[in-house]
């Protein structure tokens, strides 16, 4: 288990006074402190870690967020921002002496502008909620994490979330034009707007993916895009991971950037097929799902080119969807992958490393060897175009040894990702989960520079502490110029 810091005894001792101080700022009904009600906020998507906070506060306006942060700053109270709590890295995990600020009541869509193609929404609007609000005009918000039904745009900003379609449309950072943030000092700042390329330092860029370390996001302006005329998928199965990997390289090398390019290894294919009955080829060692866009003729043209490329790699089977329904069938297994694996084993760790795509065969071979050595099964799902690997490690949470082994196995995979030129996390964030691995990827100087930026925003390190940065070193002080 990863260590959490000792709660500050003086804060725990002042609990009642702190709650009494916050209640008038947001209204008493917006403060949750009953132990049984706090249980719903004890953990996030990294469910093996649980900790009830001091209290949960649910503000409804940016001004309320500012008032609460000003109060917490003055009183030295730690703050954990929270959206939907779907983080897979423990990013929203509470601390015993912290106040959780939940943004879920800030769930209004503020403006939609189809002429300038932007929408401004509050941080608690769900990812899919944005697309749903603009779908009637055939527009959409591009980044599409699999958790999009639940996860909130504020959480997406904090994690710089991606999705299956980000190879073509980019991740959150590439789709955000404006933010309203509240600093730990309780100051409200409007950054960017409906225009491209904000002036001055790239505040949007540093805040996106900052995991609640720098400020609380209350409003977001995103680009909305007109959907293409249609999409269609094909499936190609191969006799080895190597061959499938080579086929991915050949596709990208041919100049085609599919909207999605997903890879599944044999265990993943079997798990998904047993769950979804999507007709996946059980004899295959690896499988690609490739999706293209455009009108019927454009799709036909691209699928023909892709068919030609895949045939050069001796596929064991190829299936090209003729209709949207057949596309949906191809996607059905992949989309249910987490549920499918959850059925084989109620407990699994979803890892999120990134590797140079050319390293795929080597990395999968090593993961297979480690799987045998640890005695834990693993299924690999891979956003093949961009190198984002999701090994799902199956374990038994009732057996502490099994969980410890799974965590160790996961850490070994991530170290391997870094060793072959990749990184620890492609979309789930560092959170608590990968905090202590940061020195594997970064030198002390690299980390120190990041910590100094953290200090520039949050001098007392009250925002989401004990995440992202290893606990070992005292926070650096930035001499305010």
């Amino acid at each position: 288990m990863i260590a959490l810091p000792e709660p500050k005894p003086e804060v725990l001792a002042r609990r009642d006074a702190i709650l009494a101080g916050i209640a008038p700022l947001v209204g008493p009904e917006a403060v949750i402190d009953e132990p049984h009600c706090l249980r719903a906020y004890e953990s996030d998507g990294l469910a093996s870690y649980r900790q009830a906070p001091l209290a949960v506060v649910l503000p409804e306006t940016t001004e309320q967020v500012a008032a609460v942060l000003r109060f917490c700053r003055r009183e030295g109270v730690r703050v954990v921002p929270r959206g939907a709590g779907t983080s897979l890295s423990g990013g929203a995990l509470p601390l015993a002496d912290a106040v959780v600020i939940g943004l879920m009541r800030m769930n209004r869509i503020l403006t939609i502008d189809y002429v300038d193609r932007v929408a401004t929404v509050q941080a608690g609007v769900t990812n899919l909620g944005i697309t749903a609000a603009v779908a009637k005009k055939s527009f959409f918000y591009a980044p599409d994490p699999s958790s999009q039904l639940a996860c909130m745009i504020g959480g997406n900003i904090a994690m710089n979330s991606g999705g299956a379609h980000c190879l073509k449309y980019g991740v959150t950072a590439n789709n955000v034009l404006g933010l309203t943030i509240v600093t730990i000092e309780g100051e409200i700042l409007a950054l960017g707007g409906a225009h491209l390329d904000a002036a001055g330092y790239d505040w949007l860029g540093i805040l996106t993916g900052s995991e609640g370390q720098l400020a609380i996001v209350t409003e977001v302006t995103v680009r909305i895009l007109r959907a293409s005329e249609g999409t269609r998928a094909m499936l190609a199965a191969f006799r080895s991971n190597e061959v499938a990997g080579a086929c991915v390289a050949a596709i990208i090398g041919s100049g085609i950037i599919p909207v999605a390019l997903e890879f599944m290894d044999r265990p993943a294919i079997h798990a998904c097929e047993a769950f979804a009955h999507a007709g996946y080829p059980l004899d295959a060692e690896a499988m690609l799902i490739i999706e293209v866009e455009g009108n019927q003729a454009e799709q036909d043209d691209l699928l023909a080119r892709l068919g030609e490329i895949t045939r050069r790699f001796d596929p064991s089977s190829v299936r090209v969807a003729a209709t949207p329904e057949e596309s949906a069938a191809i996607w059905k297994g992949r989309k249910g992958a987490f549920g499918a694996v959850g059925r084989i084993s109620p407990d699994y760790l979803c890892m999120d490393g990134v590797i140079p795509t050319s390293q795929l065969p080597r990395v999968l071979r090593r993961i297979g060897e480690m799987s045998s050595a640890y005695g834990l099964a693993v299924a690999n799902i891979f956003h093949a175009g961009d190198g984002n690997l999701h090994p799902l490690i199956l374990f038994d949470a009732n057996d502490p040894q099994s969980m410890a082994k799974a965590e160790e196995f996961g850490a070994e995979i991530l170290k391997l990702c870094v060793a072959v030129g990749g990184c620890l996390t492609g979309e789930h964030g560092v959170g608590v989960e990968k905090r202590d691995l940061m020195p594997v990827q970064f030198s002390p100087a690299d980390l120190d520079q990041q910590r100094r930026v953290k200090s520039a925003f949050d001098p007392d390190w009250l925002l989401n502490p004990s995440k992202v940065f290893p606990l070992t070193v005292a926070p650096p002080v930035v001499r305010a110029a």
Partner: protein
Amino acid sequence: MTDIEAPPDEAGVAAAIAAAAVAREPLSIIGNASKAPMLRPVQAARTLSTRELAGITLHSPAELVLAAGAGTPLAVIEQALAGQGQHLIAEPPDLRALLGTAAPPTLGGTVGTNLSGPRRIAQGAMRDHVLGLRAVNGEGIPIRSGGRVLKNVTGLDLCKLIAGSHGTLAVMTEITLKVLPAPERTGTLALSALDAATGVAALAAALGSPYAVSGAAYLPEQAAVALPALAGLVASPGVALARIEDFAPSVAYRTERLAAELARFGTAQRIEDRESRTLWQAIRDAVPLGARPEDAVWRVSVRPSGGPRVAAAAAALDGRWFFDWGGGLVWIAARADAAAHRAITEAAGAAGGVWMLLRAPDALRTALPVLPPVPPVLGRLTRRVKAAFDPAGILNPGRMYAGI
């Protein structure tokens, strides 16, 4: 003329900065100084150049990545990419003609200024495609952020802060970019005889269509007549241009459909592949602006529908202008004086946008803000972030803001 120091490697850059930090001696940071006339002049006795850190260190076409020393000329990178059928996604401009400089722009300068071309509207800015970088901070300490893979959310994304910081936070030594296959074909539709507001409306319709428009410009007649690719296609008051880039059959199909969809704005003329490429290169480099030597040049970024208002302010000054980014990027050339600056920046502010004084005589760019002044709270954050990288304040002091 100041001394130019051009270390051969990152260690040399680090040593030079460390020495300057100890001596509290400001450094002017350049690649080849092709953009030196931009923003505010830096008062520094010494200049540090990255030009010797040149060369491509990694190009893996199938992984869509390229890494190069910060001093690598952009043209070298573009050529290497073209050799593999790839290109720089953000289509960065070559502003030498506009800025009156000659030496080839470097990768470091291009990322450091975060300047992007027409494709910005569809596929992101220069900073969006920076996957990783190595840099030396103001204490002379080498740091690394990001990496060489396409997705990476490990830790704070310092790449974003450093890109576009105009050399005021750290000196980049090596940059890794995402690159993409270059399109097989490009095609452009031209809708002539439109005024600015109607032109922008036509471009909004094009950008809001399902046809993946990757360039959207409006040129008033005066700006358009300078371009050979538009000969015979331009009628007063101006022309709206929409570009599509993709495989040949897609370009053929989509330009036809788009022309039909835009029929209410007039009959679209088609500009084919080669002329289309020349045309957008000229737009990229602000050739249509036709800035006179005595003019100052502004680059204003607003929501696209706000462009015409800003253009009206420029026109009222007898300035020249045109739109890129569907109306969202307003290029302006006008009298180089404080009154013109006030009129243009107020119009940009009123439209909710931001601006950059891209070119002006030294006296003017020293005396006036070259970027929108930051409000007090953000100013405090700006200073703290600057101090987090460069506590002695020696890297390009005053380049973005007086006193920072």
